[in-house]
């Protein structure tokens, strides 16, 4: 297959970036999108040019490292797939593919297509710990979890933190990410003791990172490689208002400060 790549190149965080066109002939239809970039980078290196920087790790859709906007769609045209799970057969030969990094004030570009997504880590950190005894393994099924709660919590926990929800959201909101993390623990018995405090501090951190708000466009759900439902956002909103209304003053003050 043959493509023309229109790639965002940016030498460093402070450097000005711009698009550069690269011809991409002789590409296997069975190459993944990242393998296609590997081929292009080999060709660039052989010519003595700087390869295109992009983040990647597991290449099987579970690490959340790969992240790029392909032709205006986060993770490209395949639903429920990270960039690494998109294959070149999903495109037509002769296509011009525009490749951009995630665009968000909270995700500064480090180089080319690589962004710093530590803001998502800080939201998780703000959640703190749950009260779980350590030591010897406990009996299985010692704490009973209703099947539907376990399933819904697992769906939310499948979030790999890639940031596609933020990238796809017209408001640059991290609501789907934050809500998925909150729902994951909020549905389980183990997550109950700190539920209110966790909800208040994670939402406060989300705002502090300058992510936008949720307008229910629904673009995040479509972009999510794990297809996490926007239902989790409704749940987060309900939990947040309830947490603030019932929180003890010191906790509210700690979260606001």
């Amino acid at each position, binding site marked *: 297959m043959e493509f023309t790549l229109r790639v965002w190149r940016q030498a460093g965080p402070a450097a000005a970036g711009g*698009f550069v066109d690269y011809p991409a002939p002789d590409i296997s239809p069975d190459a993944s999108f990242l393998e296609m970039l590997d081929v292009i980078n080999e060709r660039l290196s052989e010519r003595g040019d700087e390869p295109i920087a992009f983040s990647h790790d597991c290449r099987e859709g579970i690490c959340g490292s790969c992240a790029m906007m392909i032709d205006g769609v986060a993770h490209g045209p395949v639903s429920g797939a990270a960039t690494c799970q998109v294959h070149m057969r999903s495109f037509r030969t002769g296509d011009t593919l525009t490749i951009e990094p995630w665009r*968000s004030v909270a995700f500064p570009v480090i180089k080319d297509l690589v962004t710093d997504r530590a803001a998502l880590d800080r939201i998780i950190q703000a959640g703190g710990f749950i009260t779980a005894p350590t030591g010897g393994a406990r009996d299985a099924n010692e704490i009973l979890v209703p099947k539907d709660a376990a399933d819904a919590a697992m769906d939310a926990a499948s979030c790999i933190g890639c940031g596609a929800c933020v990238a796809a959201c017209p408001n640059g909101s991290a609501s789907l990410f934050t809500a998925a993390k909150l729902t994951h623990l909020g549905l389980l018995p183990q997550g109950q003791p700190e539920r209110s405090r966790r909800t208040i501090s994670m939402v406060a951190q989300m705002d502090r990172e300058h992510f936008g*708000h949720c307008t229910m*466009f629904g673009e995040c*759900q479509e972009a999510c490689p794990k297809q996490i439902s926007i*239902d989790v956002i409704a749940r987060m909103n309900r939990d947040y208002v309830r947490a603030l209304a019932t929180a003890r003053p010191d906790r509210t003050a700690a979260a606001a400060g």
Partner: protein
Amino acid sequence: MWWMPLYRSTIGKKVIMAVTGLIMVGFVVVHMLGNLQAFQGPERINAYSAFLHSTGELLWVARTVLLVAVILHIDAAVQLTRIARAARPLQYAERRPQVSTLASRTMRWGGVVLVAFIVFHILHMTTGTVHPSFAAGDVYHNLVTGLRVWPVAIFYLLAMAALGLHLYHGVWSSARTLGVARPTPHPFHRPVAVVVAVAVAVGFALIPVAVLAGWIR
């Protein structure tokens, strides 16, 4: 107070938009139903108008609640729009919406159209400032003579289209913002919002259409 962090948060601002939005939805539904009395003749709708004015303080309570709701709704919308703009200083060279509706993407401009319409509508049908032959208390006369001016009627129809779109997204999303929507395999389905949006937009639009067509004169 617990509502201060709520007000400062993006979720809290959305809650304000949802609550004030639902107050206004209640108003437009009642207003639309009241308007339909125009089809029952001048006596009926003029009597309805006289009844509303006879409530005295109650009318002003309702007006105050609506005014406060409009102001809070716009205040939160402006703040949130600023936050969203700041969240993506550098726009994508290419962006293709996948599942977002036209209604959701036109909430901001649609809202601006609705504000312009509301101001005009009050000057037109409530105070009569921009009305060609306003007669206080004669609602039937005012709407027939006012909407016979076809550019005005077209503006009314466009504004009702904008209102329908605004409600199609707003009624559905406010339930999700407030967290009262239950988890569902089809989160984008919105039967209630469709019924409310179509009923309100069509119900209002019937009046200018009827005047233009000469059904009510």
